[in-house]
């Protein structure tokens, strides 16, 4: 049947679907709540990466005032001075709540019990080493049952001792070179590294996450929406009302897809807006190109939704199938973490999914202000996916509807 798409009918069908959402206040509430929840949850799972500035001696932290304890085994003047400095810097910058423990064993018990996150032991002979012009050592122990906190504590303690250490070096060099003919930094750290940022401002992991989440929400939202909407209407019997009228099937599909895409876009931009307000994500690219990428991403995947509707016997099964499809896609399409972190064979699967290309293109647009020509490879692949899936989906839909 060579029927042409009737745009007016598709528009009527789409508008009715959206009206349906608007009329159900409860559904609307959860529709808006979902992206808010998603975004804030991941906001706290992935805290913004703090940036320290070695030049000004500041250390930023995502975990302020963690409890640590100092075990002072040396009663020399140098040891006491270092401990006092450590406490002062920790307090000043809000890094640690520092207590003192009488012995390592006592501190260790507290750490095992969970009331301490780290132990700093200043060993016997510490002052002696420094006084006799030898490098001295402090020993740290962290709670290794929690790797994230452990690595934060470890790197922050090291950073504080670096600051204390370079102060001592400065004093030592000044003492050896009374005329100040040498810049102390030349001795301590002759080469320093500065970074020229790819993008203006500060970056956080949200800058990476937000575009991915946006693509994920819009694309899988429309995918699931289309599958659910069509099978629900089939089950309720209202699909008969559409099919018994002289309406081209393409108009029905287009109408359903359009309504779900609008819903997806609303949720996607909610996510973007929230991540801007709550987590300081900045947009450098054009919103128009963003919408184009999202529309293409949706188009590339919506055929899969139609195929699922055609194959699934009812709404419940269709829904289960879409969830099963979405869930792994979330992890292997480079949405939650960079795809390079995956084993190579999994990367191949991830890169075979259109979501990867949509998220990749969107990230480039949002973060790097990429133009359409820069993301053209992604765009072409998405267009190919659209044609492939639609070629399979349309005849299947046709058959399923008249079965």
């Amino acid at each position, binding site marked *: *049947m060579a*029927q042409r798409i*009737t745009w*007016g*009918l598709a528009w*009527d069908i789409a508008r*009715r679907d959206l*009206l*349906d959402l608007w*009329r*159900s206040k409860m559904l609307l509430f959860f529709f808006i709540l979902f992206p808010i929840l998603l975004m804030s949850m991941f906001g706290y799972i992935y805290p913004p990466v703090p940036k320290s500035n070695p030049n000004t001696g500041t250390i930023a932290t995502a975990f302020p005032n963690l409890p640590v304890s100092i075990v002072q085994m040396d009663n020399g003047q140098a040891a006491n001075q270092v401990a006092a400095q450590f406490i002062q810097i920790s307090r000043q910058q809000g890094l640690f709540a520092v207590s003192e423990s009488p012995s390592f064993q006592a501190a260790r018990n507290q750490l095992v019990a969970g009331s301490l996150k780290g132990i700093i032991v200043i060993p016997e002979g510490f002052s002696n080493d420094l006084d006799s012009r030898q490098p001295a050592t402090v020993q740290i122990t962290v709670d290794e049952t929690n790797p994230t906190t452990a690595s934060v504590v470890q790197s922050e303690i090291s950073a504080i001792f670096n600051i204390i250490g370079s102060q001592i070096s400065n004093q030592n060099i000044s003492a050896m070179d009374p005329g100040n003919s040498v810049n102390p930094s030349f001795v301590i750290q002759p080469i320093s590294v500065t970074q020229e940022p790819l993008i203006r401002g500060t970056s956080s992991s949200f800058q990476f996450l937000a575009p991915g989440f946006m693509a994920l929400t819009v694309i899988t939202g429309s995918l699931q929406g289309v599958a659910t909407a069509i099978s629900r209407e*089939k*089950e*309720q*019997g*209202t699909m*008969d*009302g*559409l*099919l*018994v*009228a*002289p*309406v081209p099937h393409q108009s029905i599909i287009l109408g359903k897809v359009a309504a779900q895409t609008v819903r997806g876009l609303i949720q996607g931009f909610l996510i973007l807006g929230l991540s801007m307000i709550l987590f300081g994500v900045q947009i450098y690219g054009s919103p128009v190109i963003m919408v184009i990428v999202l529309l293409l991403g949706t188009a590339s995947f919506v055929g899969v939704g139609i195929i699922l509707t055609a194959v699934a*016997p*009812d709404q419940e099964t269709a829904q289960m199938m879409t969830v099963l499809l979405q869930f792994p896609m979330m992890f292997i399409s480079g949405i939650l973490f960079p795809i390079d972190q995956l084993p190579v064979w999994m990367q191949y699967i991830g890169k075979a999914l259109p979501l990867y290309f949509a998220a990749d293109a969107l990230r480039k647009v949002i973060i790097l202000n990429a133009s359409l020509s820069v993301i053209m490879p992604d765009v072409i692949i998405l267009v190919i996916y659209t044609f492939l899936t639609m070629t399979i989906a349309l005849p299947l839909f046709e058959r*399923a509807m*008249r*079965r």
Partner: protein
Amino acid sequence: MTLQRTELGSLTGNAIETHGLTKKFNNFTAVDNVDLSVHRGEIYGFLGPNGAGKSTTIRMLCTLLAPTSGSAVVDGYDIVKQGDDVRKRIGLVSEKMIMYPRLTALENLMFFGRLYRIDRDTLRKRSEDLLELVKLTPFKDKLVGGFSSGMRQRVNVIRAILHDPDILFLDEPTTALDPQSTRFVRDLVKELRQRGHTIVLTTHIMEEADELSDRVCIIDHGKVMAVNTPAGFKERYNTNSLLEVFLELTGRELRDSANGRISMRAPMGRS
């Protein structure tokens, strides 16, 4: 490109004409070689026990189901080759109500009417006239989700005739309605025949078939058992009740069958 009405349809002038119409679901033959002819302007009672093939036949005639073999001409057009022409000329009231609960009565009518490309002004006028006909004008701006089954069915029936179809299929239109609504819908069906619609009516209520039908077709196991007027049937079987005729023709044992189609596509033929 629109094809001309097929010769057969225009020659006989019948509203519906089928030849060897057959529908198989895997190994199960739901409709078996059925020949029907429905005259223009009549109410055609289409009766049969559960699983006899009534709804499957109707869904094929409405182009909602593709026949396995055989042919059917509806209002002069072939249901397979000229589906769109058929669809323009038929209306369907199926077992499941075709309406959206979160739309008002008028919005539902406007939505479904637009599918037939009726212009908005004409459609609004017609919807309001029909709402008046079924006495729902005071409720036209209320969501149908809050309607009683009787009210919903009245909206459902006028939804099917918005585009003034030549042929109207009514699949058990009074099932689950209270006596008042049943009376109202039956009178409405008569009124629609007066207005010139051809009506195919399926029902399990024999008094309804008796009261409304000009002719009755009894079908069982996918095959046509007999066609006659209600009076003709009663005379032939020497009884006052169409129910006795029906039981005589289709037997008295219960029809419990499970052919494995229950969980398949939603509202497929089940009677």
